[in-house]
């Protein structure tokens, strides 16, 4: 999210005495818990059709706004759609958006950050653009971009990715700039090593740890922004079962039928919590210097 860029672990620290793999999960329980919850969500998303669901878009006016019961586990919404099925299928949208944005924003941010860090004459311009983009709050930027296009999962992914790229680019650039000063990188440059070789041998290995941590936070933030976009009617199309959409449909009735909002909210919170726990755990284990301080 908006946490400041992590300081770098020094190269030699990363390689020091790795603990045996089996004790890793015990030593970092938040990785274990977060990973388990996230795997459970992925399982739900992948096997949604097999989890006793019905068609999540099937409308039936005869069974509108039912409370949870044996037949409709999470009740039904205003159009008589089964909320349990919609929530289970909603996991797909959330996870697809979260993972896609994390990967796309990381790759694009890496490219921009490397470019800005190595091509000195372009650095000033690129950084001004990034400063400008970062001065528009991410949710607002995503809303503004979504206002230009039709609501679809692809467009939501693109809009959130654009809003998240500056953060990764900043991080990568700061890594590049601090590594350029390192004696071993200076030595490599004076030995006549080409830029691609320096990037692959020296820069990338040092960016992987902070970028992985950053990617998990971006994933969590993307899932929240997707839900917010859908909730306010600027996200995926209303018929698509997404947690934000289900909550948007429950908004008018929440005082009498709170369950419509409650179940998607619960699933969204658990998923974001899982990703955040995973991110915290990874930060602690990948970046021992930072783990001591935060």
């Amino acid at each position, binding site marked *: *999210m*908006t*946490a*400041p860029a992590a300081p770098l672990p020094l190269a030699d620290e990363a390689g020091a005495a790795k603990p045996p793999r089996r004790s890793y999960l015990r030593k970092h329980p938040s990785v274990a818990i977060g990973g388990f919850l996230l795997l459970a969500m992925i399982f739900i998303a992948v096997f949604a059709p097999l989890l006793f669901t019905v068609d999540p878009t099937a409308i039936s006016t005869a069974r509108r706004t039912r409370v949870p019961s044996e037949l409709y586990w999470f009740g039904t919404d205003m159009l008589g759609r089964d909320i349990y099925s919609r929530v289970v299928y909603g996991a797909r949208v959330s996870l697809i958006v979260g993972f896609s944005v994390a990967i796309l924003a990381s790759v694009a941010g890496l490219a921009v950050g490397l470019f800005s860090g190595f091509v000195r004459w372009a650095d000033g311009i690129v950084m*001004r*653009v990034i*400063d*400008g*983009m970062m*001065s*528009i*709050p*991410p*949710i*607002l*930027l995503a*809303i*503004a971009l*979504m*206002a*230009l296009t039709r609501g679809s999962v692809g467009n939501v992914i693109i809009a959130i990715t654009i809003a998240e790229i500056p953060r990764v680019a900043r991080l990568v650039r700061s890594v590049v700039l601090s590594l350029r000063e390192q004696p071993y990188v200076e030595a490599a440059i004076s030995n006549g090593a080409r830029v691609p070789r320096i990037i692959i041998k020296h820069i990338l290995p040092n960016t992987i740890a902070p970028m992985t941590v950053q990617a998990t936070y971006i994933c*969590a933030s993307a899932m*929240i922004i997707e*839900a*917010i976009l859908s*909730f*306010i*009617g*600027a996200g995926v199309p209303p018929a698509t079962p997404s947690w934000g959409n289900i*909550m948007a449909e429950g*908004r008018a009735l*929440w*005082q009498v039928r*709170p369950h419509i*909002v*409650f179940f998607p*909210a619960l699933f*969204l*919170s658990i998923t*974001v*919590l899982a990703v*955040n*726990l995973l991110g*915290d755990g990874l930060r602690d284990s990948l970046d021992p210097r930072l783990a001591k*301080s*935060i």
Partner: protein
Amino acid sequence: MLAFIIRRIISTIPVMAFVALFVFSLLYIAPGDPAAVIAGDQASPADVERIRASLGLDRPYLVRFGEWFFRVLQGDLGTSIFTSLPVTQLIAQRIEPTLSLMVLTLIFAVVIAVPMGVVAAWKAGTWVDRAVVGFAVFGFSVPVFVIGYLLAYIFALKLDWLPVQGYTPIAQGIWPWFKNLVLPSITLGTVYIALIARITRATMLEVLQQDYIRTARSKGLAQNSVLYLHALKNAAVPVITIIGIGVALLIGGAVVTESVFAIPGLGRLTLDAILRRDYPVIQGVVLIFSFVYVLVNLAVDLIYTLVDPRIRY
């Protein structure tokens, strides 16, 4: 010092220029042809062309940007497509609730979060510390509208302590105004509190290990005076930075919070504008919010030099 302040203020100009260019491009590439809309269904292509020329829509991109920017500098943000009212007027009508909500949240959050972080760092490793860290993770993970509905359900619907929804202007009395804003402020503030508490704790942990803290303790100063006068003052820069950066969370969250609690503010205006594709309004709101955000962070940078004389430029 003065040179730094002037330099820092000048450095916001390219940033604001980029934001303006971006916001202008938004309208430029927005689907739909204003000339065709104004001309109506019966108009011939020639009529549409004439209207386009009279509106100046046929001129090049940069010329139009220049004219638009000049008008913005004069406080003219254009006219809403839907209501035909000036965008500045619409924004002026809606700014009080949003500003009230954000300022109250800011005060709530700083008053709660900073002591939380300080105590957590002081009692590092104890259950107090773990509770604060746990709250921080929770605050980051539970989306703002979930907290909103939860609080409204418990404190307004079930306990009936506070109003469920709505807003009372401050002109009708401080107390009704405050009562309506308590739940929205706590809702909006949760993620912000989590962020500030977390950074305060981390910075304080570092500062508390310094030699001068040991000295202050060994000369017998009271615990609170060590914590709040010596330690917190030295931890102030990162904490103030994150308070400034976190305003982005407040702005984004305000749109959602206003929708949950039916507050007729800028967030509500944005929402209606999106649903109606009223681009001049969307443009105006994004511009205003970004401008506020840039100003807040400019203020933060200037405050540094006041709280930390070690920072020299």
